């Protein structure tokens, strides 16, 4: 294949780069001009290929073509279009004017030059060039030139002139711009209905300019919802349309009694991504604002819900103010998870915001925010994260800080470093500390084994008449906790010390009512212990699940009298959140169910049913049944068995138990056959075979 054929085949394959590469070393004696022209055309073709997908690469190719042939009309024209596309109007104007001055001045380049001049605010010059285009171009181009002239008149405030100019157009194939300009003329005169009628005639309903005009007309007609919907139809993000959409939407929301519902009305399927993003942000703001209003009305629950909704709708980016509000409601509403989420996001956002501008960047504020976050983690029984936050706070606060020390002492306490916890806090236990702080310090002292110090601190706390009741409540709460901890650690001496202190502080009678004797744990317990334990169940369940279950197990074992259904209900509620049921949870559940079913009262059976609802899988059901068989001297009750089998008909063990309780031989055979059918492994099958033989032998 010779060189000529190679070039032709590259041309056929539209491989412009291949031709350019080949021409980089042209044959000797080849005319320079021809080489230049071919190379320019190759760049131009490359531009035409990529201008839709890669505008900057296209512009580069177009400029290269123009550099090779600077007076080429087409290259000049397309370079002008590139400039116009990227909003470089001055550059576009120069290129189109150059184009008009080249060898082929025509209506096309003149029209573009006039538009560029208009974009550069040179209205007089634009009018002259548009008139020239009007005289030169073919029919469709001349129509465009007329519309442009009308637009230029309107831009000078001569709307009547614009309308007269448009009246020159009689042809039905007039551009859409004519329709829109006509509508603009009506809008300018306040004739919004007429404007809408004009626009309704057009078939291109989703044209951005038409939507913009229709939106303006609807706004003029005081119909903000329709206006917003028209602006929302504009497919590409445009600052002017975005701003109009926001204003229309704002007007609509303000006119509506329920802002959240108003937002839903604005949301329609198939809207452009920029509208969807905007509506989501508006939803965030509306919920934030509504939440803030609820705070003013002391309706904290609604405020929390609003803030959480705002959090949901804020995709990724969350305003620091909103995060801060969330943290505060989380703390007040005693929702540590919400508080932690709020503080974490608020701190991150404050750190991201411009440095040095806001008070939120002061180390003191950030440090204390870290401490609040640590407090949240502590409430979630997450001492590791709490400790990390305290360390971050310490770095920011620099000087020793009472709050940081106190938080760290609590962390150490939770981590079972009780002596260290006390060491950290003891310097703050001077007599003029806050009475409620003394309650806490007393707790830490008691934890470290300094019971007389605890008594001293608690006495101080109770001596303040203003805080007496609160201090009393806290001391009892803490003492109950401490007492139970000692019991669980078999530290009966420590437990009786707690009892003794409570007796000394609140009187001997109160002590006896408050907590039972340590060796008599299985005797009747009073309601205070129950309350303190089961009211704290949610807190227990925030702990690592095995620890929560251990505590629950001991309560069920020791304290669950058959007649205390309230306790049982609390325990069931707690178990429902345990997923999957661990062996310990299974044993608790089995105890509860059997206790309640043998109670034979309606509420007891109802609660047993509720407890059985906690079983979620057939494996769990099997574990519970097996546990019942092993644990109790009797077989599971009929009612329990039926409930389980109605939920898990494929429970082999259930059918085996039915077999055992069968009322006649036929029923027994049928249950054994079902069990055999359901047996999945060799072990089960051998067992069932053995049972069958035994039955046959005995009969």
């Amino acid at each position, binding site marked *: 294949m*010779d*060189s*000529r054929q190679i*070039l*032709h085949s590259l*041309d056929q394959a539209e491989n412009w780069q291949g031709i350019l590469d080949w021409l980089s070393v042209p*044959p000797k*004696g*080849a*005319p320079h001009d*021809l080489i230049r*022209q*071919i190379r320019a*055309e190759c760049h131009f*073709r490359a531009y*035409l290929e990529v201008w839709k997908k890669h505008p900057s690469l296209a512009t580069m190719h177009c400029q290269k073509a123009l550099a090779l042939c600077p007076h080429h009309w*087409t290259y000049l*024209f*397309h370079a002008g*279009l590139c400039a*116009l596309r990227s909003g470089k109007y001055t550059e576009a104007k120069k290129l189109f004017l150059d184009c008009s001055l080249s060898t082929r001045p025509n209506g096309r380049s003149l*029209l573009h030059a006039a*538009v560029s001049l208009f*974009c550069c605010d040179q209205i007089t010059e634009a009018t002259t060039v548009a008139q020239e285009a009007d005289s030169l171009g073919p029919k469709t181009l001349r129509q*465009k030139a007329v519309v442009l002239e009308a*637009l230029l008149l*309107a*831009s000078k405030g001569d709307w009547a002139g614009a309308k007269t100019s448009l009246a020159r157009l009689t042809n039905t194939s007039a*551009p859409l711009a004519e329709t829109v*300009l006509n509508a*603009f003329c009506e*809008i300018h005169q306040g004739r919004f209905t007429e404007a809408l009628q004009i626009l309704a005639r057009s078939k291109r309903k989703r044209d*951005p*300019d038409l939507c*913009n005009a229709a939106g*303006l007309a609807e706004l*003029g007609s005081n119909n903000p919802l329709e206006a917003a919907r028209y602006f929302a139809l504009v497919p590409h993000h445009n600052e002017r349309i*975005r*701003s109009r959409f*926001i204003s229309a939407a*704002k007007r609509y929301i303000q006119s509506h009694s329920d802002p959240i519902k108003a937002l839903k009305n604005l949301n329609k399927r198939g809207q452009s991504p920029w509208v969807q993003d905007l509506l989501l*942000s*508006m939803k965030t703001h509306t919920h*934030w604002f509504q939440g803030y209003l609820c*705070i003013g009305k002391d309706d904290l629950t609604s405020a929390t819900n609003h803030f959480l909704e705002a959090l949901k709708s804020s995709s990724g980016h969350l*305003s620091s*103010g*909103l995060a801060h*509000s969330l943290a*505060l409601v989380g703390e007040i509403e005693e929702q540590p998870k919400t508080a932690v989420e709020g503080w974490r996001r608020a701190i991150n956002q404050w750190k991201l915001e411009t440095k040095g501008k806001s008070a*939120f960047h*002061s180390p*003191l*504020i950030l440090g*204390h925010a870290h401490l609040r976050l640590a407090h949240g983690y502590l409430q979630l029984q997450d001492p590791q994260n709490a400790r990390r936050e305290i360390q971050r706070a310490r770095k920011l606060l620099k000087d020793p800080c009472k*709050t940081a020390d106190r*938080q760290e002492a609590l962390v150490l306490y939770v981590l079972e470093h009780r002596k260290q916890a006390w060491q950290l806090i003891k310097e703050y236990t001077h007599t003029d500390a*806050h009475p*409620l*702080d003394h309650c806490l310090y007393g707790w830490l002292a008691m934890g470290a084994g300094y019971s007389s110090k605890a008594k001293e601190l608690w006495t101080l706390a109770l001596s303040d008449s203003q805080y007496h009741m609160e201090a009393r409540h806290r001391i009892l709460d803490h003492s109950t906790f401490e007492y139970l901890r000692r019991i669980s650690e078999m530290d009966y001496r420590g437990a009786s010390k707690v009892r003794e202190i409570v007796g000394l502080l609140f009187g001997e009678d109160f002590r006896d009512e408050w907590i039972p004797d340590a060796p008599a744990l299985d005797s009747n317990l009073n309601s205070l212990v129950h309350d303190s334990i089961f009211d704290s169940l949610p807190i227990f369940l925030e702990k690592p699940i095995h620890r929560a279950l251990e505590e629950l197990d001991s309560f069920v074992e020791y304290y669950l009298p058959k007649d205390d259904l309230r306790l049982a209900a609390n325990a069931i509620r707690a178990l429902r959140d345990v997923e999957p049921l661990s062996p310990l949870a299974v044993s608790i559940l089995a105890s509860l169910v059997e206790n309640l079913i043998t109670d034979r009262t309606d509420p007891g059976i109802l609660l047993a049913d509720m407890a059985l609802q906690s079983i979620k899988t057939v494996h769990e059901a099997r574990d519970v049944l097996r546990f019942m068989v092993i644990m109790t001297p009797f077989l599971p009750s009929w009612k329990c068995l039926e409930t389980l089998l109605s939920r898990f008909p494929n429970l082999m063990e259930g059918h085996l138990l039915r077999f055992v309780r069968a009322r006649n031989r036929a029923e027994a055979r049928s249950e054994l056959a079902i069990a055999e059918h359901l047996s999945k492994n060799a072990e089960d099958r051998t067992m069932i075979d053995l049972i069958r033989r035994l039955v046959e032998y005995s009969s």
Partner: protein
Amino acid sequence: MNDMENPLPRTTDPFHVLGIPYEATDEEVRSAYFLKVKEHPPEKDPEGFKRLRKAFESLREEEDRVDVILNTFPSPPSLDQFLGAQEEESFSVTIEDLRRLALSLTELNRTTFHSDQSKLGPWIDALFDSIPKEQE
């Protein structure tokens, strides 16, 4: 600082009462207070003075200010501020609308420009016809 377990959230912002930014220093707090007291002297506006005094007391020390900032619900910004939009929007036809319309008259929305291409074939032939055979 207040007890951590009992945050006292506020919706009335003492910074707002004194008209000072969150980053105000001790000195700025004092100056703002004395300036405001002149506007609301206790003998003429006892309620206003009481409010000012309360705000001043709660912001006097830096630690107090930290406490106030962290325990006050920040008021949400206006919707325009939140969305980063311009405050006022004119609903009349603007020159920008007309320019946009003018741009729709151009070939910016045209999808193909095949008619603007030149044919390369004749140029390639002309190129090889113009050079001596042995060079080709």
